[in-house]
């Protein structure tokens, strides 16, 4: 292999090959990889927030007396209205027959599930000029619950808030950013 006499065309060709690899990598990294990384999981049954608009968020997502937050309601909450079917949607049918009748909790998937090592309490955040939608998606017009996109490596939902976001807001609001404020 004698490198001494390299033709100009060779150089150009080299450039082409280089770009080939370069652009290929960019596409892989920016387009393909993210889609590979996140799985798409459907909720066990559809839940239409619109259909439940007659009552406000608190009537289903509320605080317990000890300051903890109920998050996604458990079955007994559903039972309050859906002892028997109210309408005739498929998902309500499954709710009544499969879950309520058999007393099985609906295995809802959370969109903003925090890992065990995180302590998050809604209590301090409520009434700090924060609305539900400041952190959660707006469900007021939501007929159909979206798919849950889970990171295949970490298991985090794509909409799980990461620490940097918490830190920023805490910094802005002058709230403590000490580790144990949010970790357990």
């Amino acid at each position: 292999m004698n490198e001494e006499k390299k033709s100009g065309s060779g150089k150009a060709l080299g450039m082409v090959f280089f770009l080939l690899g370069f652009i290929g990598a960019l596409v892989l990294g920016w387009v393909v990889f993210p889609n590979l990384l996140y799985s798409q999981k459907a909720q066990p049954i559809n839940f239409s927030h619109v259909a439940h608009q007659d009552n406000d968020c608190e009537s289903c997502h509320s605080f317990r007396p000890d300051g903890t937050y109920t998050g996604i309601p458990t079955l007994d909450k559903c039972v309050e209205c859906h002892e028997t079917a109210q309408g005739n949607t498929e998902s309500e049918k499954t709710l009544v027959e499969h879950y309520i009748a058999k007393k099985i909790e609906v295995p809802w998937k959370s969109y903003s599930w925090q890992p065990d090592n995180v302590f998050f309490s809604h209590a301090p955040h409520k009434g700090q000029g924060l609305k539900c939608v400041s952190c959660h998606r707006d469900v007021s017009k939501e007929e159909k619950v979206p798919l849950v996109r889970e990171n295949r490596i970490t298991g985090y939902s794509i909409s799980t808030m990461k620490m940097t976001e918490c830190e920023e807001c805490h910094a802005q609001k002058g709230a403590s950013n000490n580790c144990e404020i949010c970790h357990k």
Partner: protein
Amino acid sequence: MSEKGHAQSGVRYGMVIDLDKCTGCGACSVACQAENNISFRPDESMKLRSITWMEIYPMNNGKDYPDYRFSYLPRPCMHCDSDHHSPCTFVCPVNATTRDENNGLVTHIYPRCIGCRYCMVACPYHARDFNWWDPTWPKQMESMLSPEVSTRMRGVVEKCTFCHHRLLKARSKAYVDGADPNKVTYTPACADACPTRAISFGNLMDASSEVGKLSKDPRAFRILEKLGTKPKVYYLSRHDWIKNLADNAIK
């Protein structure tokens, strides 16, 4: 962080353990294990690898029968209040262990810890334990695990947190009740459990509090005060031989 120079907040959580009341029964240590999801193994007799946040140290007066006397000394994390940094927080390369200058708690965050064990080397009280194995429980006993404390992973350091998750819970309740979250009080599991009421806990800077008073008691002393670690755990004893064992003194 620590640069703020501490104690500005007026809250310094601390503990006082009365060795005249303590019988060394170990209830504090067991309650701590249950409260904090501390893992255990079939054989726990290899003490240098056994995870115990509240360790019961034996000590004796060095005399022979029948003048011999001994005592037990429960040792939680001292949550050292030494200036600027605690021995351990000073050395952690990744800020996994820090001291909250709002309340003096020295905490350790497992997901951040890289397991270099420099903090263990720095701590003269052996208050820090390393997860040499993947923590595992008998299947049935996984039902006993508390959701209020995360289970650890192997390869990280852990230690007594003064049950800071109880503080967080108390604060949440205060927010909901509309009370002042900075005025809440709480007790760690060990103090709650102690059957002889030998352990008291509270704000050391509040002179009217029980710990505020007891820490000024003539019987009060701390371990290794000469090192300037300024522990926030005080001990009480009426026996000189016990006090003498608390700090090195050239005889």
